[in-house]
């Protein structure tokens, strides 16, 4: 199919890679002619998910973050995965203003941003195994 494409990348969970991740996903999306607003929404959602990996999945170590993006039938699916500490209570973690990171200035709105900027967000997590965030958005 002509209108089907994907890419996979992995990189260390260093905060400097947050920009690299959202720009890479954004560059991939360009070929599907998104609006500027759609592109900004996707960049922001990716930035939130990758920041979660950097801050929460690997709090005291540097681990690997995996991103897969796939476009099929005008729907973009982005999967952001880590092998970090996992989330104890997913529904609590997804609540606006909830954060376990009180010492820095995290607002606890990462998942709220993902949910409001993407069409669907699903979170799968196992403690001490890792977390997978799957987000979809219809383009065009």
């Amino acid at each position, binding site marked *: 199919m002509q209108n089907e494409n994907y890419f996979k990348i992995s990189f260390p969970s260093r*905060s*400097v890679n*947050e*920009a690299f991740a*959202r720009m890479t996903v954004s560059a991939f999306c360009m070929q599907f002619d998104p609006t500027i*607003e759609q592109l*900004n*929404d996707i*960049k*922001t959602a990716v*930035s*939130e998910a990758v*920041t979660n990996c*950097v*801050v929460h999945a690997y709090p005291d170590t540097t681990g690997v973050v995996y991103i897969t993006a796939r476009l099929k039938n005008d729907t973009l699916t982005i999967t952001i995965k880590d092998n970090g500490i996992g989330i104890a209570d997913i529904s609590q973690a997804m609540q*606006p203003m909830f954060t376990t990171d009180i010492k*820095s*200035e*995290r*607002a606890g*709105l*990462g998942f*709220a*941003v993902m949910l*409001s*900027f993407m069409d669907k967000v699903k979170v799968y997590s196992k403690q001490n195994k890792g977390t997978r965030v799957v987000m979809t958005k219809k383009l065009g």
Partner: protein
Amino acid sequence: MTKAEFIQDKSKLTVLLCGEIDHHGARQVRGEIDNRILKYMPRLVVMDFSHVTFMDSSGIGLVLARSRFCTDCGATLYVENVDRQMSKILSLAGIKTIQNSNI
């Protein structure tokens, strides 16, 4: 690269933020902003986002923490020149902004 430039005008301190504000970038500028507020002790602090090219929810943390810091220092904080995308993010935390004002 995230940077902050400062313009001091009597009792008003304008913080001109430049570049991308994410978790990485916010950490680079927050200490510097607080130091300037402590140094000048302004009555009004304006965070100007006109030179910001990207912002995620780290911008909310940056604004809310500066707002608390300003209150502690007896100053008022305004957020200025945010675009539609930033406004969408800031509104998730109930932060109201001023568009192109001349305070």
